[in-house]
């Protein structure tokens, strides 16, 4: 079995290629020392596996994402690298390629987007490029799958272990002397010594840490400074890393002069025309808001809800009848029947009916990511985000957080500035995720029938506004910034491919389905048992059960917020497992056979104002268990994890209280 690593710049069609080359794939848990999952696919020929790395511009990392990728390349075992290169941006992409070649592992170059390069008037002599770099070059169009067979063949035929003669660039006499000096001092047995030295002088923090563990760090620091000063006075550059990047650029330009011809001036008219509208001076933000509004319309009113109703009808019609027949025919006990219908059907079924809505939302988020609009949103929002101490890029995790907070928080890895990243991580849970959507769906269906989309949108806006206010508060108190950073590549617009879109939608949404089978299943059984048992024995009336006792304690604290019932209290405790469990709990507590019946019952227990206050509390009160877990992993700090739980509770209480007070003042009750 050979292991191949897929590496390349962001937006080069890496995921498309990954999807065409692999039949199946899975996420494999943490690497040692790095708290990240890796995506491992099985190659179609079945002869090996392919590991997808985060996109990176250079082996010298700036963001956490890039650090993960370069750390992987340096320390994990693999046989060869499949480097995806955007042919229409060859010069920039080769910067990474050359660094990978210097590293010396066997490499295959997949030249993607040959069609775009051709449109832009670039003619690339792949044969010549292959000779110049000393590696095999395969032109591909990842979107259509063209050339993927050749890539597959080339990877699997590659005899593992045939290391290349490391590629070498001359960085000028002055620097080469320093490189030689460093190599001379390296301990015996250091792998890829020249590459290590080159990366050290370029300022690669991962390499530097690795060298410092084996060598005198004061000496290394002196060596670096001497080299930088020498280069500075000789060439008039500002930093060593700028100088080295320039040397490499000149080398690459030299290569390209031999194998690339420009036949005409390139045009970006399609993207340019779209951009003229969607990032317009005045229309940019309104268009974005309109887009979000349409998203909610699609999710709730136009497509999602009708599908949910169909699924509800199926679960509580044929499926329930079938199960009843089955249980009757095997003569099941009443206890088992109660467990299955009042516990599992109510709990799991009540959540599963929201799957269509959630998939529609994930589909739209995937569309935003794949089309290239995401980067524009970041750009349009940057000014506003800067005012609150963040940058436009931090808006991206927040939008992904609308789908699910967990991938949203992980997406914060692309934010280069550590404090901005931390702030984004602790604020992303305020984004209303799809699990909370199931709670809103339930409540707006009862209390706000005529303007469902608008009421739900108001909750999303509430989350965003609070995130902005708290960002301002935190960034000017506990998380003071040194320097903010915003550089975003605006990729050309592409019409997303159905295959990639459906795959990434499924990838995001399957967690929700899996949760229904695990967490929610277990939670439902537990909740039902707690409601079935009480201090005075089994099969007690619901309000004498353990669940009522526990929920009652919480309920007392919640009385000022307008929903101080034991039912609400119990739902909130269980909602920590996963927010959609709130729906399961309510189904079980109110012993509702289906969603319509539950809505009828809830109408008697809440007023519209209390319902709104309750929804706001659900939105804010505590990130769910999975989110708390990922906050812990990503921040690597128990303190910040506790902080994100506690501030959320305080904010939830204050906001819900304010809603009730304002509502009452306006004459609602």
């Amino acid at each position, binding site marked *: 079995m050979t292991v191949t690593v897929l590496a390349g710049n962001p937006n080069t069609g890496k995921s498309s290629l990954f999807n065409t080359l692999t039949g199946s794939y899975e996420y494999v848990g943490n690497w040692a020392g790095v708290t990240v999952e890796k995506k491992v696919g099985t190659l179609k020929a079945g002869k090996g596996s392919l590991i997808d790395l985060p996109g990176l*511009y*250079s082996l*010298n990392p*700036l963001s956490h994402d890039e650090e993960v990728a370069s750390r992987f390349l340096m320390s994990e075992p693999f046989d060869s690298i499949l480097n995806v290169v955007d042919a*229409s*941006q060859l*010069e*920039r992409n080769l*910067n990474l390629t050359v660094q990978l070649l210097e590293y010396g592992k066997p490499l295959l170059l997949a030249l993607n987007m040959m069609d775009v390069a051709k449109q*832009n008037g670039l003619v690339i002599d792949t044969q010549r490029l292959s000779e110049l770099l000393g590696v095999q070059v395969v032109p591909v169009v990842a979107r259509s799958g063209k050339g993927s067979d050749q890539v597959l063949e080339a990877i699997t035929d590659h005899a593992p272990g045939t290391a290349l003669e490391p590629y070498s660039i001359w960085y000028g006499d002055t620097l080469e002397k320093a490189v030689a000096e460093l190599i001379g001092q390296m301990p015996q047995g250091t792998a890829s010594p020249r590459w290590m030295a080159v990366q050290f002088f370029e*300022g690669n923090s991962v390499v530097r840490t690795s060298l410092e563990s084996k060598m005198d760090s004061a000496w290394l620091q002196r060596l670096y400074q001497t080299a930088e000063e020498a280069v500075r006075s000789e060439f008039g*550059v*500002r*930093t060593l*890393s*700028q100088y080295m*990047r*320039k040397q490499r*650029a000149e080398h690459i330009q030299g290569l390209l002069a031999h194998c690339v011809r420009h036949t005409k001036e*390139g045009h*970006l008219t399609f*993207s*340019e025309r779209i*951009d003229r509208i969607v*990032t317009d*001076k*005045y229309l*940019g933000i309104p268009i974005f808001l309109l887009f979000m509004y349409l998203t909610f319309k699609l999710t709730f009113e136009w497509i999602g809800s009708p599908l949910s109703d169909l699924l509800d009808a199926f679960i509580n019609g044929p499926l329930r009848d079938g199960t009843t027949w089955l249980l009757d025919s095997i003569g099941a006990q009443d206890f088992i029947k109660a467990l299955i219908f009042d516990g599992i059907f109510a709990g799991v079924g009540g959540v599963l009916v929201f799957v269509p809505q959630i998939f529609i939302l994930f589909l739209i988020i995937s569309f935003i990511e794949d089309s290239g609009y995401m*980067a524009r949103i*970041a*750009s*349009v929002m*940057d*000014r506003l985000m*800067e005012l609150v101490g963040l940058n*436009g890029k931090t808006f991206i995790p927040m939008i992904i957080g609308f789908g699910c907070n967990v991938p949203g928080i992980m997406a914060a890895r692309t934010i*280069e*500035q550590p404090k901005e990243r931390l702030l984004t991580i602790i604020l992303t849970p305020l984004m209303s995720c799809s699990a909370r959507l199931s709670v809103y769906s339930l409540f707006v269906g009862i209390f706000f029938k005529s303007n469902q989309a608008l009421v739900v949108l108001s909750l999303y806006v509430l989350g965003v506004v609070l995130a902005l206010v708290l960002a301002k508060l935190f960034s000017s108190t506990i998380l003071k910034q040194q*320097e903010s*950073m*915003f*550089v*975003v*590549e*605006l*990729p*050309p617009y592409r019409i997303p491919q159905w295959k990639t879109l459906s795959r990434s939608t499924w990838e995001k949404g399957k967690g929700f389905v899996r949760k229904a089978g695990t967490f929610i299943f277990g939670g439902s059984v537990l909740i039902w048992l707690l409601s079935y048992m009480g201090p005075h024995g089994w099969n007690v009336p619901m309000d004498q059960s353990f669940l009522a006792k526990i929920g009652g304690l919480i309920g007392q604290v919640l009385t000022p917020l307008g929903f101080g019932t034991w039912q609400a209290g119990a739902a909130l405790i269980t909602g920590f497992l996963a927010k959609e469990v709130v729906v399961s709990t309510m189904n079980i507590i109110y012993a509702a056979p289906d969603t319509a019946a539950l809505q009828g019952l809830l109408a008697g227990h809440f007023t519209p104002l209390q319902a709104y206050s309750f929804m706001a509390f659900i939105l804010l009160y505590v990130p769910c268990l999975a989110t708390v877990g990922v906050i812990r992993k990503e921040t690597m700090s128990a303190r910040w994890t506790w902080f994100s739980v506690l501030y959320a509770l305080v904010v939830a209480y204050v906001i819900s209280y304010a809603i009730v007070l304002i509502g009452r003042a306006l004459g609602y009750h």
Partner: protein
Amino acid sequence: MKLTEIELSLPVRIVDMACNNQLVCRRLNDLGIMEGTLVSIKKRLPFGGPITLEAGNQWISIRRCEALQILVEAV
């Protein structure tokens, strides 16, 4: 002159990347934008928002305050 002062779509050459913010400078370098690169401005967002640069057929959005520190010359 400063990068922010040029007309839309007029190509100019970078003569000095005097960014105070090293992170920004590094990232621009990664994207192949350095002294000697030809760039033009494609868009300015309102209220002092970011500007969109074009260099070698790629579009990059950076903040105005950083663009102010990049010096360019006419070609």
